[in-house]
């Protein structure tokens, strides 16, 4: 992309997509009857040109961002992207086209273009597409269960909250503070030749900050990011509630209500500790991983390798393939992890980013086991791959990040079940002789088949003989996925269970972003290799 250049990601005031609209406009949804009419135009045009299957997605994607630093607002953007994408099977091959001109002629033209592309590509196919059967649901709808629509909260309230966050940070001695609030509303309509007309209204929110302190004499600087999670919730996530906090450890932890002011005050103290932290001695440590950290390790080392399209080689050129090959699943005894490891795929958990009623090819969502008592038992799949696993139906993992992107297999929420025995994080720490207690995501990297990974944390506390004695710096753990999950020895109970997640899981060419959550309770892994990442320049 030479036309774009190195600074493309830094252009201010440039909305990520779509046109800027007023708040009032964003609150008025498009009439369902009109959407059904447009969908039928596309489906009929596709069928008349020879499509044996067609689906259409009419998407209105609203995106609001409030970005501040120190005492000023850097950017407020309220944008909309609205259009229609049609996907067809013709001559056994997929074709796709999209348009944002929503008159009947343009919609029909897009459907015809999709059929033409499908027919043109059919000569480059080894075998025809096989779709798992899917019954039509008729006219149905689904909505994220939110209490407060974030798009209805006045911008001024959001700006005031973030500037208060910044002011608390500066009071705590921060040199720099960036705070941001991201809100997403996907108003999605799906229809297919199977007879489904599905209207969905999906909400997500993510408040976050980065607090920085510098020591100009030494030239050192340290940061701490927010320990919030992006959630499938409304603005109620930002209304603190004591019953949703876990206190008593070195860090206050948040469940489904987040106290951003409290977190930033703690962050200011943590950065002082980070600036004075002692370098870690490399070696084996027992790791106690908080859900705010562990979610990303689950995402990379369990979520991605169990995506069936990766296993089959569809992502070989970019995201990569998977070490969890079909023979390991077929054996029914591949020891992915210890008996403690029970991993559930889920598209329904309240508050999670992956929760929807139906996926982007009209399949009703549910949940299923991926790892059962340490054994690989299933993958994540969509309609054109279900037959490979001998499944009679898709698992509902299809998603496209926009009306003009082609839907494909994306990760559902993939979560580690909490332990059955009553155990708090504070009690877990008491039994650790030599360990590290990690919070928050930091650096993360994993190979293209998901064997070898390296992770670091926002905060890494030293545990010595059952007590937290200080903070380490430059600590990163490196492990092999199977060895790591086999070193999982203990999980806290469901009272400690929390969601972490990301708005921007990247996959595909051209790249698409997807939002996904991963839940767990605090979990212990024994004898993991930890390296020191400190270096000196010059």
């Amino acid at each position, binding site marked *: *992309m*030479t*036309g*774009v*250049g*190195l*600074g493309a990601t*830094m*252009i201010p*005031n*440039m*909305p990520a997509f*779509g*046109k*800027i609209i*007023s708040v009032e406009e964003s609150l008025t949804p498009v009439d369902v009857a009109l959407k059904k009419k447009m969908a039928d135009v596309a489906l009929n045009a596709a069928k008349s040109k020879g499509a044996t299957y067609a689906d259409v997605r009419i998407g209105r994607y609203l995106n609001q961002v409030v970005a501040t630093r120190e005492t*000023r*607002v850097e950017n*407020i953007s309220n944008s909309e992207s609205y259009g229609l994408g049609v996907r067809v099977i013709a001559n056994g*091959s*997929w*074709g*796709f*086209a*999209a348009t*944002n001109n929503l008159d009947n002629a343009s919609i029909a033209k897009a459907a015809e273009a999709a059929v033409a*592309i499908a027919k*043109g*590509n059919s*000569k*480059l*196919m*080894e075998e025809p597409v096989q779709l798992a059967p899917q019954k039509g649901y008729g006219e149905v709808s689904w909505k994220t269960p939110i209490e407060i629509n974030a798009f209805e909260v006045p911008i001024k309230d959001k700006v005031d909250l973030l500037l208060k966050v910044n002011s608390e940070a500066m009071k705590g001695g921060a*040199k720099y503070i960036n705070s941001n609030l991201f809100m997403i509303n996907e108003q999605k309509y799906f229809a297919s030749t199977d007879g489904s007309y599905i209207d969905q209204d999906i909400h997500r929110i993510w408040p976050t900050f980065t607090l920085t302190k*510098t020591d100009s004499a*030494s*030239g050192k*600087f340290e940061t701490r990011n927010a320990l919030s999670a992006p959630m499938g919730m409304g603005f109620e996530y930002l209304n603190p509630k004591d019953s949703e906090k876990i206190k008593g450890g070195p860090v206050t932890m948040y469940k489904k209500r987040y106290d951003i002011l409290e977190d930033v005050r703690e962050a200011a103290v943590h950065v002082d500790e980070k600036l004075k932290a002692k370098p870690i001695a490399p070696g084996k440590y027992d790791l106690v991983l908080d859900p705010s950290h562990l979610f990303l390790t689950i995402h990379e080392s369990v979520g991605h390798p169990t995506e069936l399209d990766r296993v089959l*080689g*569809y*992502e*070989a*050129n970019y995201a*990569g393939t998977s070490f969890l090959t079909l023979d390991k699943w077929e054996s029914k005894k591949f020891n992915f992890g210890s008996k403690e490891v029970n991993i559930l795929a889920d598209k329904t958990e309240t508050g999670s980013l992956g929760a929807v009623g139906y996926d982007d090819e009209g399949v009703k969502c549910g949940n299923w086991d991926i790892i059962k008592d340490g054994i690989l038992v299933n993958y994540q799949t969509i309609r054109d791959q279900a037959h490979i696993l001998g499944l009679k139906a898709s698992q509902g993992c299809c998603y496209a990040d926009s009306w003009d992107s082609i839907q494909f297999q994306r990760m559902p929420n993939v979560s580690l079940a909490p332990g059955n025995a009553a155990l708090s994080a504070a009690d877990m720490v008491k039994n650790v002789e030599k360990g590290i207690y990690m919070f928050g995501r930091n*650096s*993360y*990297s994993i*190979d*293209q088949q998901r*064997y*070898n990974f*390296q992770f670091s944390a926002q905060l890494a506390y030293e545990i010595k003989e059952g007590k937290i004695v200080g903070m380490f710096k430059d600590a*990163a753990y*490196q492990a092999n996925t199977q060895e790591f999950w086999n070193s999982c020895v203990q999980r806290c109970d469901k009272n400690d269970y929390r969601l972490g997640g990301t708005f921007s899981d990247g996959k595909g*060419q051209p790249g698409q972003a997807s939002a996904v959550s991963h839940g767990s309770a605090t979990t212990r892994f024994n004898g993991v290799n930890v390296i020191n*990442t*400190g*270096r*000196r*320049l010059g």
Partner: protein
Amino acid sequence: MPILTQEQAKALLTKTLSYSKAEQCEINLSGADSGNIRYARNSVSTSGGTSTNSLVVTSAFGKKSGTATINEFDDASLEKVVRRSEELAKLAPENPEFMPFLGPQKYGPESPTFSESTAKMGAKERADAVQASLEQAKANKLTAAGFLSNSAGISALMNSKGLFAYNKYTNVAFNITVKTEDGKGSGYATKGYNDFTKLNAEAATAIAAKKALSSVAARAVEPGKYTVILEPTAVAVMLENLFFDMDARRADEGRSSMSKPGGKTKMGEQLLDERVNIYSDPWHPELPTAVWSGDGRPQEKVNWIEKGIVKNLYASRYWAQKTGIKSIPTPGGAIMQGGTKSLEELIKGTEKGILVTRLWYIRPVDPQTLLLTGLTRDGTFYIENGEIKFPVKNFRFNESPIIMLNNLEELGKSERTVSAESNINYILPPLKIRDFTFTSLSDAI
């Protein structure tokens, strides 16, 4: 709709600007026609095309500014978007860092960023290229997965201070991973051009196929410090992290690898080996880029690193004015001066070392030292006495491009390459580096 000519863009922008009632108004217009085809398991998986146009209007009253965007171009929509940006500007808090828009600028001659052959590409040309690639893979009993995309687009800028700028460009990108049937060998190639006729998908597939076949039965070699030869695409993903960090403000604020104790920056310091010369040049014949930046500043030839010394940092107009440094925008690409040796000659001159085709999943570990971690992928080989001896298992590395460019042994001949992480094109040489730090082994193929 087809991409707009300079005259059409000027007429559209002039009309839009005529609706403005703000103290200042600036309009960015961009549009592109693009298409792609993706394949895996020796079959096409997805393909599609998009045509997008967008108009971004920024209006300002004093230090209050508002931005609105639209993708409809009838008169009513054009007026609506201008009004909306004005409403947003009036509602916005005052931005103390707001800079008045630039007046007319002097740009250098047009850069050859546009190629008619790429602009004419359609689904058929893409399918034909993919067919040639697939036939090559199938003939060798290999499995190919690849991606070919092309785009033709324009960007234009006009403001109420009399500034007008226009650029049209084309891009074509091709990358391919080829695996042996048993999955034990994997090879990769990537190519990027402005001109589609320069792309030889079959030849790129042949390179990936050769690497796949010769990487079967890789042996495990102990991790540690090794002399490595990094091919240009591996160099790209390391060095771009250095380029991304050359922002003056972050350096001045004491929070980048360009900061140093005492609140100073590394400008003027010997940061790297004295053979390291990195510059940007919008008129480079192999990597032409736009002669103006998104905010209207001229793009010129800039020396970023000269003989290993930091010569320039880029800065926003606000930061440049505040600190009194030269106002240089982020460049459209970067070029590292190479030597005269081919990759083969570098290998020939190496007693013991590792040849790295590609580095993958690069993430920053420590922003102060620019320490990065990631892994080798799709073709890693052991070199002994000037010859490739055998394939080796992939490694995880922990290394900083700053440390790496101080451990420089030799530079090969520069060529245009693409970062597999950012998709940005560069001109970079293969590099021979001593003491490159591999910290563990990976079983990934």
